[in-house]
């Protein structure tokens, strides 16, 4: 059985025909070729797949594509505007918040959501928020630093 889903992805209206069991992350990666969103686990633990659905961070491996019908989805590919990096992207670059880059899209999307909710998080709050995003490379030190600097930059 196939079903049709219509949603907005990075500002553009898209329609796709998927199986009911298709996950949102599969819709993004396999149907829409948005391969910036990654799959790092099969138990909803790693956060490599985090995107925004209607503005809030969601693990896209844990949501069916059909559940996103009618929603507005932002992926890492849609975060920079007109070639200008989002302050969180910029801060990750400036403070070496990434190494292999695999966790990075999910980590950045998660951090952006944190800063939407809390404009000046403490180190402990940052660490706690990012608890659902596993990075095996950085030891989180520079990720935390990047988020702190992004927060300061966004407060202006």
């Amino acid at each position, binding site marked *: 059985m196939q079903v049709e889903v219509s949603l907005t992805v990075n500002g553009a209206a898209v329609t796709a025909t998927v199986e009911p069991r298709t996950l949102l992350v599969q819709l993004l990666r396999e149907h829409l070729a948005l391969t*910036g969103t990654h799959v790092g686990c099969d138990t909803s633990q790693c956060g490599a797949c985090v995107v925004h659905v209607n503005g809030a961070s969601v693990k896209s491996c844990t949501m069916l594509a059909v559940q996103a019908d009618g929603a507005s989805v932002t992926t890492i590919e849609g975060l920079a505007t007109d070639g200008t990096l989002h302050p969180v992207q910029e801060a990750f670059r400036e403070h070496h918040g990434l190494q292999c880059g695999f966790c990075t899209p999910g980590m950045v999307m998660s951090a952006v959501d944190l800063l939407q909710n809390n404009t000046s998080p403490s180190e402990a709050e940052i660490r706690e928020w990012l608890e659902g995003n596993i990075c095996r490379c*950085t030891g989180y030190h520079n990720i935390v630093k990047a988020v702190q600097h992004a927060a300061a930059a966004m407060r202006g």
Partner: protein
Amino acid sequence: MPDAPMTYQIGASVKRREDLRFLTGKGNYTDDINRPGQLYAYLLRSPMAHAEIVSIDTTAAKAMAGVRAVFTGADMAADGVGGLPCGWQIHSKDGSPMVEPPHPALAVGRVRHVGDTVAVVIADTLAQAKDAAEALEVEYKALSAVATTTEATVDGAPLVWEDAKNNICYDWHIGDKAAVDAAFASAAQVATIDLVNNRLIPNAMEPRAALGDFNPATGEHTLITTSQNPHVIRLLMGAFVLKIPEHKLRVLAPDVGGGFGSKIYHYAEEAICTWAAAKLKRPVKWTAERTESFMTDAHGRDHVTHAELAMDAEGRFLALRVSTLANMGAYLSTFAPAVPTYLYATLLAGVYKTPAIYAEVKAVFTNTTPVDAYRGAGRPEATFLLERLVDEAARVSGIDRAEIRRRNFIPADAYPYQTPVALQYDSGDYAGCLDAALKAADYDGFAARKAASEAAGKLRGIGLSTYLEACGIAPSAVVGSLGARAGLFEVGKIRVHPTGSVTVFTGTHSHGQGHETTFAQVVADALGVGIDSVEIVHGDTANVPFGMGTYGSRSLAVGGSAIVKACDKIIAKARKIAAHLLEAAESDIEFKDGLFKVAGTDRQKSLPEISLAAYVPHNYPIDELEPGLEETAFYDPKNFTYPGGTHICEVEVDPETGVTKVVKFTAVDDVGRVINPMIVEGQIHGGVAQGIGQALLEQCVYDDSGQLLTGSMMDYCMPRADDLPSFHVENHTTLCTHNPLGVKGCGEVGAIGSPPAVMNAVVDALKGYGVTHMDMPATPEKVWRAIQAGTRS
């Protein structure tokens, strides 16, 4: 502006050039790549740790929608596909070679660990392949299994391989046993320890993947794979498994999402996808689910050790005696036999001038996933053993833990220093690292911090680790004499284009290390060109001449040296061209900052002017020189490199819950010359995080029947952001004396130095309860039980 002063790149925290693509979702990882007509492979994994495969009925599966093929081990054998080779041969004490069992890509007749691969289903979609795998009927006859290292050698234990008596793969030794025995006989005091180095699962965040393709028109096979060393995969898979000559086999390793050793090895799935693609004349792709990663990525560590340290009355080390059992798993992974021998026992001198050392190592087979190198590989095991034992020596002798280390350090003026276990250290300053670390960690202020913790109902401990490691692997002749079946040189090729921009080809591979930035810094300075004019190419056997890849912290020390050598060749040729263009003697040409100058004059040519002349050779010494400006260098290192340093950890333990938190971590490391401080710090952060993970959180667990109990990220505890503190990292540099950059390597030091620092801190925190040792990981349960069992003194 030829006279503008040049900005040097070496030593600057240049922002990484690879970041933009990763930050905008434009990375190019194996699973991101799709080829037209691509099919999907799904592998059926054994649910049993040890069983006969009585029969496999593929009829129903083959009839299912979308299924293109189902293959088993018999199909591969019928095609003459060979087993996965082992790259290192160890000989036992008695001179006999290790037991080297076959390792078919798909199991034949028997499965030997949970996750062993039984069959592959290839279908139009992954969902179809998975559905069809459910319809495969495999009849197993269960056999009893052996899962733990210590039980493997017990008489009557189930045998993983019939010809490995007591499951022993090899029984190896190193050092002077008689000298050690004599030293123990006259020792004033002896420290003894029994410890386990816990088994770990690497868990690079990108799961392994492979995409095979075949072009019937050219006969060319292509494999895109998540590898740290594509040339090694081409060599092993081409020569031993599929028998495809190099010129018809291209292996690409595009962006790779972390490796930590687990992506060095040649894995079955690479051969299966390449072979099946040729058979079906369609691209075949496989991507691991994380559960498969847990069952099939090579695991790390898993040692059981008894060790004794003989001392004189003043706590000077006289001799070290070590006996280790090391788990190989069910098959020998690519470099597995080398890890508990030449990467472990040769490190047992550490930073100490212990005059006599003897170590024996038995490697054993078990019904578990193969074990191989994981970040540090052998050196973390040696360091953990030594640094725990030295703390025990301090306890036994009543000497302060920093003082007993200092008393036994190899002095800074003793280089080159020959250890009793084969290695010759070229440089280091262990006392300097220790002093810097004690200061940075405010060691003297610990008592006050401990009192403050106690006032808040918490226990506090501090631990030191003064470590050394050997990396930058490795001199080919040396490793060859020790059983390596490959050379460990590296290759660099420099192409200066007609207008002066530069493409660099390296046989090393970056999967997080930032080579595209660091190597560009090296080349920019060597050739005197802007860093934006330099591009680094890696990960493609069709473009890069050759290479052994990235592991053992070798990329800069070995691969960087090859690049420097190739730059030297470019400069030598360019100097000749400059002499011709400037009508001067070659010996009068000086090269500095990208300019070739006639000494004592203002006549000069820039590198772009020279490269243009080389590619448009109208006015050119054509009788003596070939046109073009491109050079290749192979560099074989003269020695290992020897980074070292001091890590200091402070933990706080909640006695009510046993929860242990690292509250302060200080690392002072000597990694040789630092090219990019930002990247080096990042490497150390990551290594320390993995080391703290090993010490407090991570543990691979099999039950007695060989079932993997920690088979997902819900069961295997990965360090998360809220498990770790921020780290204080410093460098205390002595230069490597035998490579042109003076670099030592920084990829593994964090994971090598940190676990004993953490555990020494945990034991220190619990010493009031009579605790003198605890095996890793120090989970809340283990710590709580130790507190309950202990008596507060």
